């Protein structure tokens, strides 16, 4: 029986980046990457503007701090609030973008997985398709709920504690901030470790592939996605094994659609992450007031967002590739 399964159409947010011709996975991926890279330039310009304002604020506050009076301490408080005001609007936009991307990826996954399950079942993999569908659906739902209901509000809490710590210099607030960050990282790591373990137990994350390519992929994923990149790189073998067997048109289209939804927001948040890290390093040169720590904390918040969006995307990619591999 030869049945034709079609992946759901890419949602509006990713449609602009989706290549027209998806017959060749390699060239389609290249086209998608080129389109997504176009969003980087305006973000870089905006990041440079923010960086210059931050440098000016830190320079002025370091002058105030040099006075070493009560006025200097009030100035540091004002400086922390100034940096918070400059960065919070942009950070809020990125947090909303990250949360929206995670939700869109989850919604698309809910449409894609039944198609992939049906395709796998039609090719004789009834048992494995049921196991895969159950696992991916559960992990997708858990990760989505965790991010939208707990981790995104906690990013705001983390930023509030970071700003308060920078303004007052209270050691207790610093400890609370670190605890909040540690909890978020722990939550993401636990879910992803359980997901990769489940995929290994079900036997779909296995197979042989080029060792050099596997190593390169692992290094790339663990360095590009902060916080959880190391865990996700363990599942990269599945992606590489699947990449060699992508003959299922629905699966290929599905993977490209997931990437179309994910790449542009990920790059935008990534630019903010890198620019904040660079600004913190620059400001540390003439900062005697410790305000670069606050800028660094905003960068960390962007890193956590990258981890959340990266985790959602790679969960979908690994799951889809596992369906493809099962269909061979």
């Amino acid at each position, binding site marked *: 029986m030869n049945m034709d399964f079609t992946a759901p159409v890419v949602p509006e947010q990713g449609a602009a980046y989706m290549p027209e011709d998806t017959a060749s996975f390699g060239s389609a991926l290249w086209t998608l990457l080129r389109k997504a890279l176009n969003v980087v330039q305006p973000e870089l310009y905006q990041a440079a503007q923010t960086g210059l304002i931050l440098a000016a604020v830190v*320079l002025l506050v370091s002058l105030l701090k040099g006075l070493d009076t009560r006025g*200097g301490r009030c100035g540091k408080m*004002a400086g922390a609030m100034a940096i918070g005001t*400059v960065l919070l609007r942009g950070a*809020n936009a990125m947090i909303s973008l990250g949360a929206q991307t995670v939700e869109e990826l989850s919604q698309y996954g809910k449409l894609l997985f039944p198609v992939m399950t049906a395709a796998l079942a039609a090719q004789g993999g009834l048992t494995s398709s049921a196991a895969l569908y159950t696992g991916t659906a559960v992990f997708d739902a858990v990760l989505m709920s965790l991010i939208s209901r707990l981790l995104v509000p906690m990013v705001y809490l983390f930023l509030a504690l970071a700003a308060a710590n920078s303004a007052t210099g209270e050691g207790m607030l610093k400890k609370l901030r670190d605890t909040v960050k540690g909890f978020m990282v722990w939550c993401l790591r636990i879910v992803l470790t359980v997901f990769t373990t489940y995929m290994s137990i079900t036997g779909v994350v296995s197979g042989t592939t080029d060792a050099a390519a596997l190593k390169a992929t692992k290094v790339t994923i663990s360095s590009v996605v902060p916080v959880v990149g190391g865990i996700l790189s363990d599942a990269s073998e599945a992606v590489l094994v699947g990449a060699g067997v992508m003959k299922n048109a629905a699966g290929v289209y599905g993977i490209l659609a997931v990437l179309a939804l994910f790449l542009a927001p990920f790059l935008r948040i990534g630019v903010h992450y890198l620019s904040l890290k660079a600004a913190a390093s620059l400001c540390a040169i003439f900062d005697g007031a410790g305000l670069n720590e606050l800028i660094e904390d905003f960068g960390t918040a962007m890193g956590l967002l990258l981890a959340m969006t990266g985790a959602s995307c790679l969960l979908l990619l690994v799951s889809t590739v596992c369906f493809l591999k099962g269909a061979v």
Partner: protein
Amino acid sequence: MDGLWRVLGAALLTTVLGLTIGKGHKELAAVLTMAACVMAAAVAVGYLQTVVAFIWELEETAGLGSEILTVLLKAVGIGFVTQVTGALCSDGGSASLGKTVQLLGSAVTLYLSIPIFRQMLDVIREILE
């Protein structure tokens, strides 16, 4: 950097003269110290002008009309003036007056920072909405 060396020399000379004159004429010694402080502050302001010009250059390059920088610049100026005045009062034997002047500096800095706090509050309101 000539200004710096001149001020350092004048400061040392004033200290020595203050010790000599101060034994008999404390008022004269205080006036001498004040004059040296004003001279040093004037030289410091000259150097700070370059820093301030650089900050405005940063602001212009960024292309953002920033109220925040104006507020912080005023705070720097007030902090500078109140610290020098407070220290002079303390040297003149009025330590409590010196501390009160510095407290005044803190109060004015906080007062000037209100627009920044208000902007922060507006952003938080936007997020909550």
